[in-house]
């Protein structure tokens, strides 16, 4: 009884101080951490693969005009699974190391991207320019049986 109390005290003494100084000192996440999404607008060609696979329906696609496709990211609902990053054929969408995303303004957690598209001569729907079609078939939509939405 006395021995075990002594042992317990020793364990506590040996451990010392283990708490971190965060938030007074900055805290870097580990490499490979899945943080806030970032989008490189120049790389995106609007295939919509990310909207196709997002489990939380954070990414919403709408073809507002014939030449224009709008991609909206309501990432306050984002679960940081990283599926969008995984399927993006151009690596335009990435998960950053940023984790301090608390804000008072919901608009801070909203992003909107407009991409100019080539409309189909027959049906009028938006498509990425023909040269990119092959790239699109490569990644985002190959997911069909595994993750595509019918």
């Amino acid at each position, binding site marked *: 009884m006395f021995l075990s109390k002594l042992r317990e005290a020793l364990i506590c003494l040996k*451990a010392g101080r283990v708490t971190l100084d965060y938030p007074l000192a900055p805290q870097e996440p580990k490499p*490979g951490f*899945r943080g806030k999404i970032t989008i490189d607008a120049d790389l995106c060609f609007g295939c919509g693969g990310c909207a196709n696979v997002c*489990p939380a329906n954070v990414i919403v696609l709408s073809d507002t005009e014939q030449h224009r496709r709008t991609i909206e990211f309501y990432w306050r609902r984002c679960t940081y699974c990283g599926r969008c990053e995984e399927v993006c054929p151009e690596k335009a969408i990435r998960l950053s190391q940023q984790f301090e995303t608390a804000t008072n303004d919901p608009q801070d957690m909203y992003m909107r991207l407009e991409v100019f598209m080539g409309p189909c001569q027959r049906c009028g729907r938006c498509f990425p320019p023909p040269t990119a079609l092959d790239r699109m078939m490569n990644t985002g939509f190959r997911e069909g*049986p595994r993750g595509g*939405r019918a």
Partner: protein
Amino acid sequence: MSTVDQAAVTRVKDAVAARGNGAVLSATQPHPDTLRFVIEKNAMRAAVAGLVKELRARFLISVGTDQRPLTGDFSILHLFSLDQDHLYVLLESSVSEKDPWIESITDLVPGANWAEREFRDAIGVRPDGHPDPRRLLLADDWPEGVFPLRRDFPYNYKPPRAENVRPQMLEPPKGASVLPIGPFFPVLEEPAYWRMFVEGETVVGCDTRIFYNHRGIEKLGDSVMTYNEIPYLAERICGICGFIHSTCYCQAVEKAAGIEVPRRARYIRTIMLELERIHSHLLWLGIAGHIIGFETILMQTWRVREPVMWLCEEISGNRKTYGMNTVGGLRRNLANQIMPKLLETLGRVEKETVAIRDAVIGDTTLQARTKGVGTLTNEWAKQVCVVGPPARASGVAIDARVDHPYAAYDEIPPRIATEEAGDTWARVLVRIAELLDSIRLVRDALAAIPPGPICADIKEEIPPGRFGLSVVEAPRGEAVHFVLTGGDNRPYRWRVRAPTYPNLQAMPAMVEGANIADVPITLGSLDPCFSCTERLETIDRTTNEVRVYSGAELLEMSRRRVCPGGAR
């Protein structure tokens, strides 16, 4: 791979056929470890009796499915496990829409109590002769005759609010007072309402109302999400054993579709599952200490646990909800440069855990507070189909990792730790033994991990109409996922049973005859998580005097083990 004995298959077929009296419509073996019988509903009860009484089958769960769009009928499935024979047995009956009832099996298998009430609530098939046919799944203000898991029920339907509804609770035995615990209470991970019937300070019985936190994920799974979106939803069923649920779901789909998962992926899944067990058991040990006022053990086990969380973050990109599983394998590989760090951290965790174990094992205060508290007898543990550490602490040597090997457990078998006493102390010992064995399993897995791909290449659509059943041993017990595949790239039915579901059903037996101050640690010893508390009140029925205890007071009571008016 443990092979299934053909003699056992024949034995089960004979037993079901003998009891079924010609009402067995078909007997198939869709997977090597699964036998499926389609039986007329009149013979279901007899077949269940045959399985349970003659073959000592263990009840897992019931699944009610609305198959009207396919066959015109509802289907009721009772799932059983024959642990010694490594077999699952599925008994299926169709129930017509005009006459939606089936004979209850709760008197044969007490553990089927909640499962039967659940399919009654969800699809409206009445278990005839059920001893306790109160509402379970649906909210008390949910309208009668609206069944949310029927196919014609839209997932986003919101019923009108009802006024003045209260849970239907049992009357206390004569002379006993009622002591309500919950709906918010420190030792319960979700809102749950317990009414303890007390005489003085001794509990003489209890009643419960749960499912306040029902989120309808099964409905979402079969109407909104797709096959590969569900793993992320499944991961969020539980905050601690997220990877277990996503693995369990993925394995069920893989089994249904006949997808072969690469060997490396199975090894990495094993490593992650065991890491989850390590940090979950350390967390539990700390909280058990916290409930009985032994804060040293809380601070120290959580300090030891934290490096494991950092390790998980480094492997998967997040402390929890790893997002690593996908149907067919994994999304993220285990980098070779993490392995030395993993081994080093595990070595440290093992050393410190052993030090803590050696220190607390001789601590008579801890033993005085846990020995003989919340005892669950071996017989009743089998009857209510308790799983996980509570079962093993009562001498029921079941472990899904051994009985139904999945991932890489066929190549690196775990050792089952059992105790006979069945009390809270036995549960502490079982969990510490499992924790140390998990560290060994991760080491073995790291030593044997093969190179190769981590995800199967799936080219074809998952065929509809197949089913998969997967059981994964979570830290709290076994999680069961049942998937019936459908069209539109999503399951037709997805059934989840978390380990606490059967374990909570054993609570009434565990607290009967106990002291009020022992109730928190008894609840806690089942390892539900802990949320913040609101209050607890006691009502003395004879005087109607109400005394309200704050959570702090109750915890204090549990620590000092004193009761109002009590002599202790």
